[in-house]
């Protein structure tokens, strides 16, 4: 207890700095976004809040999400003649920070919808606030099953698949495409990991594949013992992990001991910078849109504007696009955009195609109809290539 208090005490100044930094950024953003709402009906003016981890440890991811939201808003404004502006909310992937930011948005009546937040834990934190305010929110990366399964957040939507889709889908891919006789599955003792493991194993066993279930602490950095347990029959090692550097180390331990088994990682390992063992597989909740022909135009624009990007931006583009279209349809019906009519329009969303390469339509719980995960294979240089399987 004493040690924890001491740690908190030492962390306080750091926290204070961080809070001060984002407090000021929020303020400036709201003031710039507040222009021109008077002629709402004729102009179709509305504000949409984007909640993303713009600063902090995963700032790169948040920046990508913000960029794609901005790109969608610009394009849709041009196409629909709307005047939709974005208000930035920096959540730092922290539930506490998301709550603070959301409180500001809820009290700002000009904001008709939220795009985001990024993390499932953040959605849990702001769920009751947006429900009370009737404020719709569409996330491009929150995949936790319970968020929609329980039905407690009726104004929450997402354009990505749920975690309970990932496990069985990955298992089927492994069984049907990689066709192993025996696999090793190592969980990292977190709820994310054991949950996925429990979903994957029954499917594999049902197909007659032998499973050696192992488990390792997320803090451990030596996997040579586990690597030596990979026997000659084992051709796939499934790692439902979140720390990409650990998987990289596991892969190196396998190579060190001359093992031929390939690694199959879940979306937590999707990290082209840190996990690059050639021949491995990784699944992801977002597609690599650079491989989708109809997205060539958007890819071109995004690359010229912000440089390279991964799988976090495109789903946010899709989410922003849903909101933009909803606002536009409200205006076309001769109404002023408000939270309730935008929410109703979002529920009616039915886009036959999207940036994600699939139709966008929500079921009664706010989940994407027909949502799926995407599998990538790492080529000889460790570059991620989208593969299609069953």
């Amino acid at each position, binding site marked *: 207890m004493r*040690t924890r208090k001491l740690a908190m005490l030492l962390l306080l100044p750091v926290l204070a700095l961080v809070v001060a930094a984002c407090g000021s950024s929020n303020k400036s953003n709201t003031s710039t976004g507040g222009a021109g709402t008077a002629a709402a009906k004729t102009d179709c003016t509305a504000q949409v809040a984007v909640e993303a981890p713009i600063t902090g440890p995963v700032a790169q991811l948040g920046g990508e999400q913000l960029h794609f939201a901005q790109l969608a808003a610009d394009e849709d404004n041009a196409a629909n003649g709307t005047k939709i502006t974005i208000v930035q909310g920096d959540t730092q992937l922290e539930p506490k920070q998301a709550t603070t930011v959301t409180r500001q948005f809820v009290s700002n009546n000009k904001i008709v919808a939220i795009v985001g937040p990024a993390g499932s834990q953040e959605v849990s934190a702001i769920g009751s606030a947006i429900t009370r305010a009737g404020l719709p929110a569409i996330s491009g990366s929150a995949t936790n099953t319970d968020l929609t399964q329980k039905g407690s957040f009726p104004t929450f939507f997402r354009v990505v698949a749920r975690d309970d889709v990932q496990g069985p889908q990955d298992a089927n891919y492994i069984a049907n495409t990689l066709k192993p006789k025996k696999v090793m599955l190592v969980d990292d003792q977190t709820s994310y990991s054991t949950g996925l493991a429990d979903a994957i194993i029954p499917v594999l066993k049902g197909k007659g594949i032998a499973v050696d279930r192992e488990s390792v602490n997320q803090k451990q950095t030596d996997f040579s013992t586990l690597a030596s347990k990979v026997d000659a029959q084992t051709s796939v090692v499934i790692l439902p992990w979140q720390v990409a550097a650990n998987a990289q180390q596991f892969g190196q331990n396998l190579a060190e001991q001359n093992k031929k088994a390939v690694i199959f990682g879940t979306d937590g390992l999707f990290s082209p910078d840190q996990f690059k063992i050639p021949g491995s597989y990784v699944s992801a909740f977002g597609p690599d849109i650079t491989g989708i022909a109809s997205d060539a135009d958007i890819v071109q624009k995004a690359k010229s504007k912000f440089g390279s990007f991964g799988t976090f931006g495109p789903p946010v583009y899709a989410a922003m696009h849903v909101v933009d279209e909803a606002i536009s349809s409200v205006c076309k019906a001769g109404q002023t955009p408000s939270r309730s009519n935008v929410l109703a329009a979002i529920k009616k969303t039915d886009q036959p195609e999207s940036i994600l390469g699939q139709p966008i339509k929500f079921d009664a719980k706010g989940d994407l109809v027909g949502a799926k995960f995407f599998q990538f294979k790492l080529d000889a240089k460790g570059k991620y290539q989208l593969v299609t399987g069953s």
Partner: protein
Amino acid sequence: MHFFLQQVVNGLTTGSLYALIALGYSMVYGVLKLLNFAHGDLYMLGAFVGYFVLQWFGGADGLSIPVPLVLLFMFTAAAFSMGGLGMAIERFAYRPLRDAPRIAPLITALGVSFFLENAVLLLFGAQTRIYNTPEFISFKTGIHIGAFSIDIVRIMVIVLSLALMFALREIVNRTTLGKSMRAVAIDREAAEMLGINVDRTIALTFFLGSALAGIAGVMAGLVFNQVYNLIGFVAGLKAFTAAVVGGIGSLPGAVLGGLLIGLAESFAAGYISSTYQNLIVFGVLIVVMLVRPSGLLGHAKIEKV
């Protein structure tokens, strides 16, 4: 059979690292009766120093000088900087409290540990640094017989650790410094009366222990690749356990304890279950402590430094 040998190699590698860190714990405990909880963080910082030296010479995939030379620089830089830091910590954090009740320096040690961990977080950020050893030392070098393989890095870690342990034993047993250390350990006041410079002896003890931790940090970086600000905590805890099991204050005990824990971990995960690895290891240790409360070599005061 190869599986057994593989586990022995894996166990010896981690065991050597635990032993090197445990030596520092044991030496400091010997002279000051202080549990220096910041010791694991010197191991972490040593790993960082090694990483930065590696980057300085072009990084894993673009080294500008031969590999053995880089390794030499990495090890010496880590050893001397951590040795110096260890002396500084002793001078400013522990010496003023030398005559205070035992609990005071213990809390200070925890504080120093948090200070180091968070200072690194502030200075270098939270992201994991990767040595990427296979880029400059190929797995193909080393011993490969059928399914059994030891790469050169592991061989180096085991051999270098044993050499350092031997050197330390020689220093403690044969040099004047070693004699002073043993004297301070037995009775500080008496040693002072006999003209031994106690402050200097303690400072040098810290230097030696911390340098070993720094070297262990570089080794960990080379074998396990990942370096971030919290790696010292778990390693420090395991090494502390090793020191206690071996008999704290006893140097051969620290080595024995370290190797024992490394091997126990490796065999527990290899033959029983990786899920219950720590449970099994610590279960064994509890049994050892029940049978020999002062540690495996603790009671025999042959070499109480």
